[in-house]
């Protein structure tokens, strides 16, 4: 019986790989967009404007305080009431990008704050403009603090992308969910799903650990 199910599972492997491609697409697009948006918000948060600081802070709190599933449902079911009709794929991208941006924004802001104040003063004294300060003085140093948790955040986002299967995006989790209706071997089917995620996430986790060690050494010698 097990071998029979196993061959059935092997036959549906192309289906899983299609799902894997969808997972990579959804999380890849959201990672890039979320990183850009997150860096932007993070930099704005460390500027002088109190209003923008609190505005972004409140938004981040709202997003961090509610489950991602609820956020997806809000984007997917409530926006149509406001006249914005979205397919499952763009709805998934929007909510995942926003989630990523909120977490990355906090990481970036913390990284920028970790740069000693004297560095900024020295840059100002050297006559660098605000943009030059950011580009040549603050960010290169802040990246040491930002990079390890950033990669860790990517892992979380890739894992969170599994939740978009709830609104019908055909990702790996959805592929597993559909397959288990035909192949009633939940352990086998979702072990396969797990392995596929593991292949993507585990190297990133190792990379994050490695960066933490490397950057840690870097900052102590600094």
């Amino acid at each position, binding site marked *: 019986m097990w071998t029979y199910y196993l061959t059935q599972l092997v036959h549906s492997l192309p289906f899983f790989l299609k799902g894997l491609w969808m997972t990579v697409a959804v999380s890849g697009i959201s990672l890039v967009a979320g990183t850009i948006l997150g860096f932007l918000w993070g930099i704005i948060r460390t500027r002088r404007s109190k209003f923008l600081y609190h505005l972004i802070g409140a938004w981040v*709190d*709202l997003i*961090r*305080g*509610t*489950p*991602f*599933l*609820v956020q997806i*449902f*809000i984007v997917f*079911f*409530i926006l149509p*009431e*406001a006249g914005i009709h979205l397919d499952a794929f763009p709805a998934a991208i929007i909510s995942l990008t926003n989630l990523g941006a909120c977490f990355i924004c906090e990481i970036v802001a913390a990284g920028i704050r970790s740069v000693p104040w004297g560095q900024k003063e020295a840059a100002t004294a050297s006559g660098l403009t605000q943009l030059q300060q950011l580009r040549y003085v603050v960010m290169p140093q802040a990246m040491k603090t930002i990079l390890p948790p950033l990669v860790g955040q990517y*892992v979380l986002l890739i*894992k*969170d*992308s*599994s*939740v978009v*299967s*709830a609104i019908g995006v055909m990702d*790996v*989790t959805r592929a*597993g*969910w559909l397959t*288990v209706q035909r192949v*009633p*071997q*939940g*352990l086998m*089917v*979702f*072990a396969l*799903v*797990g392995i596929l*995620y*593991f292949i993507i*996430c*585990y190297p990133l*986790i190792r990379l994050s650990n490695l960066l933490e060690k490397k950057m840690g050494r870097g900052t102590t010698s600094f």
Partner: protein
Amino acid sequence: MLEAFNFRVILEYMPLFLKCFMATLWLSGAGLLGSLVVGTLACAMRISRSKLLSGAAGVYIESIRSTPLLAQIYFFYFGLPSLGIMVTEEMTGVIALTLNSGAYMAEILRAGVQSVPFGQIEAAVASSLNYFQRMRYVVLPQALGVTIPPMLGQAIVLVKDSALLSLISITELTRAGQIMTSERFMPAEGFLTTAVFYLVIYFVLKSVAAWSEKRLIFHESR
């Protein structure tokens, strides 16, 4: 959209929401207690000298951390019956939350224990304290303080993660929003009310975490 926002219906559904609020609290509470037990065990195994125990705990922690919770929930939901183990959905949910959160708890505890300088343990050995005395009077008092803020952070994650249990038809907060959406076709009212309830839990836990962090710094500076 908002001009048609119907507070009367929300009020009508309030008993359901309150019931589901309690369900979310007990599901994540049970998950938290379970994960403390599992996490302590896994941490003890991970830092033990035995290669076998440490390796087993490592496999458990890494495989949980590199796969999404939703896949783990489905793994148990569809997998346990195929092993002939019949438990209720709630039980399945608590098991999945416990095992998932346990891996993260183990890492938090490990970071706490390893934050105690080795000299402290050497000093304790030199003072001829035995293993339990060393743990009770030297290691744990220092380690626990460090672990409490990240543990509260994990509790916040756990509450949000419990939203995924709605996908295996457990009646909790997110499910209440879904029920309201399908019965009255009011996704805005349903899911925004759900979000507000989660935010209440989030802000309570967040302020407790902030308070504990402040207490911790006070302790260290003393």
